[in-house]
């Protein structure tokens, strides 16, 4: 049964890799800059999935911190990128 789960996890990892390659095409070619931001967000979510599949393949629990860290950095990066695309600055002070 464990061999079957290992095989399934390897196949899932290959499929997630293909998914990241498709998103990378959108990052490089994307017609506008918000398209690139969306594709980068989805690449980060796929990386979280790859870390979960690695935790299954290696039978370890030490990758769970990595999953949380990727999620938090992804949210901060996406919010910063959206604010930069909207106004041209990230931290805006309304005192001028």
């Amino acid at each position: 049964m464990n061999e079957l789960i290992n095989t399934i996890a390897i196949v899932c990892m290959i499929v997630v890799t293909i998914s990241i390659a498709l998103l990378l095409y959108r990052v490089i070619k994307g017609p506008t800059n918000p398209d690139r931001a969306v594709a980068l967000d989805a690449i980060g979510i796929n990386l979280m999935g790859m870390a979960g599949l690695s935790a299954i393949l290696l039978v370890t629990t030490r990758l769970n911190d990595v999953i949380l860290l990727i999620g938090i950095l992804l949210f901060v990066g996406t919010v910063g990128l959206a604010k930069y695309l909207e106004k041209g600055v990230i931290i805006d002070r309304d005192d001028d």
Partner: protein
Amino acid sequence: MTGTTTEFIMNILVIVFLIAGTFFVISASIGVIRFPDIYTRLHASTKAATLGISGIMIGAFIFLYVEHQIVSGKLILGIIFILLTAPVSAHMIGRAAHSIGIKPWSQDGNTKDEYADALKDK
């Protein structure tokens, strides 16, 4: 006997969750490739990728519980975090795209942009 039966059912559950999650992840990225517009791409990316990552995380959670008897709360925390932050970031990217002047896609050229009308009236 019961222990092996429970383990068998848990392993089947792990396989089902992994395959369902990977299907949703690959369908999200096919949607990002195929849809014509930034707003429809946001729709595909946010919903399907959130569902796919939830499936993979639940699969890993059940696998670690069966294999090591470890209840790993960080995986569940990751699911909750993605469920909270994916709509927020999608909303911010969509608003930024609208404010830098990207029109919604239309096949015949006359899509009604109600958000622009509301901004004009304000």
